[in-house]
């Protein structure tokens, strides 16, 4: 075997980066105390403060369209130059009929484009980003759009109901010299680990209770982050920001500490206490908040996690262009501040949990 084949991290032939990014978070918020009030008589600790809930006329298609429009506003490119529209989600509105074709049509990327929906639990979005890095980095396309978006569902009364939220982000990958953040390298760590699943035709997911922590989330994220940093010769202190998949507040805090990151490096991208776990959008929407705060020459480590199980790690280097991009679309904080609190009954109606 040649040395080239032993390389575990991925770097495209042509340097690639993010030329645009955009977030979307719906306006409704369900406080975790409301879930506790209904199911625990109010007597329960809560894993987050509140979660974002999609309105009656919102789904992964509409939310992806708005995030993609924000990414286009920052990229300042012609949408007809996009050659792939890829949407990662656990809550595509159709079982058969792509989310991505509607998104591509609405943003003006049709007809000269690939379009497909990606599935890998909570890392479907970063999987699409990885593919977009390869697609643009090979020279097959100048631009590719990768989206991670979810309107996550939890069975009524299940612990997941506190956190399963709605939101996500869109990224346009393209040439490094047009980018606001250049991809220094990426890596993916994958095993067959059944920690969380939803069978075809089931409405709500199932999970392996305590199996979800140690052998799943923590093992995959630490393996992925460490392998990438080892290969790139970087260490936690080299990064201004780190963003992890965030199913609750404690998991990313603990994995950050284990890997040697400080709470300050984690803070800007830790959105779960205020919007919930937005599944395929979780790490990616956290990254939008980090990019909103980023300055030229900052380094960012992004590490996603998807049940089943796998973790994508990416090392990003921020460029001068980030400063002009900030104002070209709403910041993630603008969406978080647009907040209308709802009670459990309204939530049950919005999420289709009422049946007759």
């Amino acid at each position: 075997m040649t040395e080239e084949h032993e390389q575990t991290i991925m770097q495209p032939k042509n340097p690639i980066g993010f030329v645009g990014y955009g977030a979307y978070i719906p306006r409704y918020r369900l406080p975790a105390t409301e879930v506790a009030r209904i199911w625990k008589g109010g007597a329960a600790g809560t894993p987050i403060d509140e979660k974002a809930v999609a309105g009656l006329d919102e789904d992964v298609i509409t939310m992806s369209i708005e995030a993609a429009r924000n990414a286009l506003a920052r990229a300042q490119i012609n949408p007809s130059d996009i050659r792939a529209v890829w949407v990662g989600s656990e809550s595509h509105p159709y079982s058969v009929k792509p989310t991505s074709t509607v998104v591509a049509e609405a943003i003006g990327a049709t007809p000269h484009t690939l379009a497909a929906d990606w599935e890998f639990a909570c890392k479907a979005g970063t999987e699409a980003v990885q593919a977009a890095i390869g697609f643009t980095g090979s020279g097959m396309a100048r631009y590719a759009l990768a989206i991670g978006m979810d309107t996550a569902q939890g069975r009524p009364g299940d612990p997941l109901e506190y956190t399963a939220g709605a939101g996500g982000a869109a990224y346009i990958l393209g040439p490094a010299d047009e980018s606001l953040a250049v991809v220094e390298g990426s890596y993916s760590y994958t095993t067959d680990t059944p920690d969380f699943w939803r069978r075809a035709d089931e409405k709500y997911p199932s999970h392996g209770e305590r199996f979800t922590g140690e052998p799943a989330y923590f093992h995959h994220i630490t393996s992925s982050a460490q392998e990438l940093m080892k290969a790139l010769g970087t260490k936690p202190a080299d990064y201004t920001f780190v963003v992890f998949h965030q199913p609750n507040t404690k998991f990313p805090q603990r994995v950050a500490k284990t890997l040697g990151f400080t709470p300050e490096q984690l803070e800007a991208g830790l959105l779960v206490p205020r919007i919930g776990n937005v599944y395929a959008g979780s790490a990616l929407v956290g990254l939008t908040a980090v990019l909103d705060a980023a300055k030229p020459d900052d380094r960012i480590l992004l590490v996603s996690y998807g049940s089943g199980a796998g973790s994508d790690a990416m090392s990003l280097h921020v460029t001068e262009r980030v400063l002009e991009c900030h104002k070209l679309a709403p910041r993630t904080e603008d969406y978080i501040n647009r907040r209308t609190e709802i009670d459990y009954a309204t939530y049950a109606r919005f999420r289709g949990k009422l049946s007759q």
Partner: protein
Amino acid sequence: MEITSHWRIKKQRYALVGEVCPHCSAKIFPPRDICPECGDEAKDHYQFSGRGEVYSYTTLYNAPAGYEEQAPYTVAMVQLEEGPLVTAQLTDIDVKEPEVGMPVEMVTRKLGSEGDRGILIYGYKFRPVLETA
């Protein structure tokens, strides 16, 4: 409405794509291929900005078939900044909130569905302009 009818108007309905008159520069929505201002042919596509203001509105508590799921909701005539008046639902707004003159922006949302087994219909609505810092 037949699936083919939905399909034919998808561009105008997903993204507020209308027409601009090559003779007098009038912006036209919905597209009709004839300029309402000068009467000449007008087929050039025009992407509206999506910004406008509420011209008038009414709230529906008893929604027509196919729209019950989202009731009550408000339907408004929105004056686009390019000129045309468009009728559309307001969204991300409480029933008591709308005002004449309120600045709004276009978003693409779910309009309804053709029953449980039919296609989902998406199209433009308007919401209060998102406040940015």
